[in-house]
């Protein structure tokens, strides 16, 4: 495997392994080939230097140093191995039990670990050493093991905890796999690589502890010898008779060094993100250009190429950004959109090799010096990044971070910069900006963070704003707010903007021109109207054809009949909100779901939509836990990587639900074909498949036990549009062939429109509207549904730019509070327009989810006919 090759290709590892082998040979053969035994005394040569008779000389009473040292080495090695194995076993058992079982087991174990940590092991061992005299080295070694497992146990515990949260463990639980089997098949194999490394490194540590204790007379007892006792004996004589000291001391250091080299190499080999796995440092070369860019072009990219090691990320990309225009850069994941933007700013990591030219006016940015880049960054070109949580330094207040951007380019004083930062926050619509400037990033919601990011970007009135997926991490109603703000900011500052996005709808709404990227190449460029209406390149055509549209017309299927497969009314689920690690205290309640009604009939697809945190996944898990449901239902998860155990072959993965029920597994090859995979690939591992193929594996696993209902949790959200289209087609085909019912959860209304017969909309843990897909999405009655629909961008500039957009204020409220009356009130435009008397109803009476028109249920006191979106 690759990892093994990487492992042995490291020089340090090879040398280390070789040294370890040699030392073991020396320790185990030395005493055998030596003409002397360790305790034998040669009265004729006392303190004699190395010679033919005594290869490494003799000590102060005439014992042979070679015999003694090799014997001592063997003892130290054996003790080291015993200690390391014993403590690793203890650590993995304790850690896995504490992590997986939780509760009291966990608390007691953690207390024991902390207790052992405040007792230095050497104190304990020396204390009991008087009792151990005569008990032999094995007892000593076991004791060392008992006192040395805590830190590894902590690590195993936290690894287990995070594994428990992984989708593949949840998947196994939902399939009904037994706990013991989950620990054996899913938890331990995934902790194994850490344990191997840990044992290796622990051998070195154990040898160090053993020698130290023996040195001070608390470990191995004379006449037995170990490296520690030999070093102790030799210390006084080290200057006059170096051979009595340095052979033992040298072997000790060399052994531990070799072990840590191998341990480090193992870690690198098993960790794909380790330094050793990363490519080496790259170079940056500016290519000269034939002519200067035209006068109205502010930013001009020519023949830009970026490589990471051998992998080409961007291949000879060119585009121009004209004054005041918005250039949309669109493409699927990994097509090189972000890398292009970062290269322009000189912000790629040192591993990148960059070639080409990026001109900002007259300034060449590729290969520019630090001074030039500092003057450009933030002042003439500002950036807005995708994930606003990780893009702010977590330890500084928002106001300080914005002020820093100001002070980098002006000579404002600290106070002036702060005052200006508050103004900027106000201008991007942050309520109470004085107070909010004092907040830390984690205290902001996603939308507020992105507003603050935009405030920072416009702080120095830049010529160019580079926005890299500025709304991808946001909910669709918040995305609409932020896009609106970006548009305003761009118009007011007159800056030109590059907007990088994978979302054709976003581009359609905001861009003047668009560049389509695929595999590092710009395949097509033109005005947004042209490219969307008359795409020239096959890739662009495919892309446009693959995007699901909210305004698409979908033929309705026959209404489903029969008793529902599942049905819930008023479903609620709360989680305790806890604080503290040692003593968990309950500080509140998360009202994850507080009133969900839904029913799925045989053969029918119900789409469940809602923004993040609205309780969709909790609803699914609650439904799966209902008695009787698990027999007929199977789950497909959102992230196809994390829902497949990386250490199982896909054949085993697909067969797992069958095995859990004790059914025969001979139907598995057929399943491969059914989902469009090759049965020959059954022995491969998940990482050898693409994202779309992995999702097919997840679907095959769900189908293996012939369920009547498949619950799909955002099954296509992690996939690119073209891949997504393939999976949706597959789902439709399987549904028709097998007569399946789907409960299809998604935040993406366009996808839901395409596949669902009926739709159910959730807001803050409640069902607010349910009905036929065409009715709910075409004639929504609930104000939230209407806002949601209007916020979804339509990938067609002609439609998107003429649509009426209904912006909701604020963020979804917190699920930590109990809400009186209607939970949507704070953002509801209908409520805002009501008179005081009517408002009171919304404030005090929670609206019931009831039928307003045949088959169309709405939870709003003032539901009214909405405007159709198409």
């Amino acid at each position: 495997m690759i990892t093994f090759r990487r492992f042995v290709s490291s020089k340090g590892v090879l040398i280390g392994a070789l040294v370890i082998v040699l030392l073991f040979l020396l320790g185990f053969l030395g005493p055998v080939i030596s003409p002397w035994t360790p305790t034998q005394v040669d009265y004729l040569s006392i303190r004699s230097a190395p010679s033919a008779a005594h290869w490494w000389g003799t000590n102060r009473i005439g014992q042979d140093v070679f015999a003694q040292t090799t014997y001592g080495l063997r003892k130290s090695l054996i003790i080291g191995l015993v200690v390391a194995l014993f403590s690793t076993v203890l650590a993995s058992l304790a850690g896995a039990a504490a992590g997986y079982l939780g509760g009291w087991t966990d608390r007691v174990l953690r207390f024991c670990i902390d207790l052992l940590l405040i007792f230095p092991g050497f104190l304990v061992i020396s204390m009991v050493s008087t009792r151990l005299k005569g008990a032999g080295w094995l007892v000593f070694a076991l004791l060392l093991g008992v006192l040395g497992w805590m830190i590894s146990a902590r690590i195993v515990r936290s690894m287990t905890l995070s594994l428990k949260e992984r989708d593949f463990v949840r998947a196994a639980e939902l399939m009904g796999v037994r706990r013991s089997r989950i620990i054996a098949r899913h938890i331990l194999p995934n902790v194994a690589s850490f344990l191997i490394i840990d044992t290796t490194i622990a051998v070195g540590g154990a040898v160090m502890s053993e020698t130290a204790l023996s040195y001070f007379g608390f470990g191995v007892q004379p006449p037995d010898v170990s490296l520690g006792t030999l070093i102790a004996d030799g210390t006084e004589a080290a200057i006059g008779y170096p051979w009595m000291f340095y052979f033992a001391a040298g072997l000790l250091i060399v052994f531990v060094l070799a072990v840590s080299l191998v341990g480090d190499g193992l870690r690198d080999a098993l960790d794909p993100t380790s330094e050793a796995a990363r490519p080496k440092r790259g170079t940056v070369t500016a290519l000269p250009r034939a002519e200067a860019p035209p006068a109205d072009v502010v930013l001009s990219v020519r023949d830009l190429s970026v490589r990471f090691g051998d992998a080409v990320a961007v291949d000879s990309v060119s585009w121009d950004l004209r004054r005041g225009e918005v250039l949309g850069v669109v493409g699927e994941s990994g097509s090189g959109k972000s890398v292009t933007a970062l290269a322009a700013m000189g912000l790629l990591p040192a591993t990148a090799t960059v070639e080409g030219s990026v001109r900002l006016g007259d300034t060449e940015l590729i290969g520019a010096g630090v001074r030039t880049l500092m003057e450009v960054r933030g002042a003439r070109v500002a950036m807005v990044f995708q994930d606003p949580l990780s893009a702010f330094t977590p330890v500084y207040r928002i106001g300080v971070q914005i002020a820093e951007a100001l002070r980098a380019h002006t000579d404002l004083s600290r106070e002036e910069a702060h005052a200006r930062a508050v103004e900027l926050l106000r201008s991007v619509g942050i309520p109470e900006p004085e107070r909010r400037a004092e907040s830390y990033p984690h205290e902001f919601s996603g939308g507020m963070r992105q507003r603050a990011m935009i405030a920072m970007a416009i702080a120095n009135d830049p010529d160019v704003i580079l926005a890299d997926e500025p709304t991808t991490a946001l909910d669709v109603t918040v995305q609409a707010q932020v896009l609106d703000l970006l548009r305003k900011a761009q118009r007011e500052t007159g800056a030109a903007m590059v907007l990088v996005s994978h979302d054709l709808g976003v581009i359609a709404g905001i861009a003047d021109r668009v560049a389509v990227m695929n595999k590092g190449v710009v395949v097509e460029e033109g005005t947004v109207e042209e490219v969307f209406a008359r795409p020239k390149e096959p890739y662009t055509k495919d892309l446009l054809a693959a995007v699901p549209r909210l305004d698409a017309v979908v033929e309705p299927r026959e209404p489903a009949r029969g008793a529902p497969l599942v049905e819930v009314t008023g479903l609620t689920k709360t989680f305790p909100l806890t604080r503290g690690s040692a003593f968990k205290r309950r500080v509140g309640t998360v009202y994850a779901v507080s009133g969900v009604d839904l029913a799925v009939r045989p053969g029918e697809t119900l789409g469940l939509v809602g923004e993040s945190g609205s309780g969709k996944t909790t609803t699914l898990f609650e439904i799966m836990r209902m008695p009787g449901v698990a027999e007929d239902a199977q789950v497909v998860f959102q992230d196809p990587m994390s829902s497949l155990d990386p250490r199982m072959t896909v054949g085993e993965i697909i067969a797992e639900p069958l095995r859990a029920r004790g059914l025969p597994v001979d139907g598995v090859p057929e399943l491969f074909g059914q989902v469009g995979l090759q049965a020959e690939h059954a022995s491969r591992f998940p990482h050898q498949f693409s994202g779309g193929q992995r999702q097919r594996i997840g679907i095959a696993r769900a189908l293996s036990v012939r369920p009547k209902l498949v619950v799909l949790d955002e099954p296509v959200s992690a996939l690119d549009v073209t891949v997504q289209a393939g999976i949706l087609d597959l789902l439709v085909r399987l549904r028709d062939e097998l007569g399946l019912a789907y409960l299809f959860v998604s935040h993406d209304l366009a996808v839901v429109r395409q596949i669902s017969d009926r739709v159910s909309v959730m807001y803050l843990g409640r069902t607010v509207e349910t009905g036929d897909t065409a009715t709910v999405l075409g004639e929504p009655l609930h104000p939230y549904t209407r806002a949601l629909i209007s916020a979804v961008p339509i990938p067609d500039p002609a439609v998107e730019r003429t649509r009426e957009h209904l912006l909701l204020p604020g963020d979804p409220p917190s699920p930590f509070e109990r809400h009186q009356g209607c939970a949507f009130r704070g953002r509801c435009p209908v409520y805002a327009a009501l008179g005081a008397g009517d408002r009171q109803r919304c404030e005090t009476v929670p609206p019931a989810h009831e039928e307003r028109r045949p088959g169309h249920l709405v939870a709003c006191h003032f539901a009214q006919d909405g405007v159709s979106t198409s």
Partner: protein
Amino acid sequence: MLGYLGRRAGYYVVLLLTAVFISYALATASMNPRAYFEGRRPQPPAAMVDAQLTELGINDKVPFLERFGTWAGHAVTGDLGRTIDDTSVNDEFGRRIGVSLRLLILGTLVGTVVGVLAGAWGAIRQYRFSDRAVTVVSFVLLSTPVFLLATLLKIGTTWLNDNVVHLIDFTGETTPGLQGGFLVHLGDRAAHLLLPTLSIALGTIAAYSRYQRATMLDVLASDYLRTALAKGIHPRTAMLRHGLRTALVPMTTFFAFGFLGIFTGAAFTERIFGWHGMGDWFMNAVNRNDVNSVVAVNLFAAVVILLSGFVADVLLAVLDPRVRNA
């Protein structure tokens, strides 16, 4: 923040009390003070040995819990009992604690500060020769146990003193009978501190620099460092103000674990350089079956380790607003 620290402190007190009880139990179970008295020549009569043991509160004929109760009753008033030579444990404690704390505090400070700086510097200079050199040196230091490092330093200095030029004296804390003013004495003390401090600090520097380098590398690849650079501040400022500052947060955890190693190393170092600190006391006491002294050192160890844990908690809360608000 105060709530968070208060809870941690409460937990630590529970841990401490348990630790003290267990160490008392272990010490009484494994040591045999009776043998110490009976081993005297001429051998004292049994009744006298009994009387002596009872007087010191370590008579194994008294039930364990009763003995512990008596000891604990005194301990809560601040009296840690008598040593096996019938002197006050408190007095001995007072004499030795300063010696140990000097070494511990200096070793920790030097080790932490130099280690953090070396690690951060290595991360910034990744792929360069200097980073590799630091890496190699720290690997060698990490592979040398403290007792051996101290011994090697001692042997090396002795050799230099005898064969090249007399550099420094290092046995004990001071040169006995030294004449001269305040500065002479101060210099003498500093010279004596040098080798023991190095023995503890070198390994700590190596360990912390590895951790710091790793956390710093993570931070250097982070989105927020990119944002900081994108504002147009100097890369060096960004690395210090945004990079190093944030990379210090996870170090607080290593700091708590690392102190255990420093404590052990300091105990060994004292012994090797002839400092009469707590570690030296402990080893003597074990060899002489001096239960009360052994328990006193255990108490000291538990308290300083918990204190270091508490300092780590405070540092974490100071460094990370996310913890502070929790």
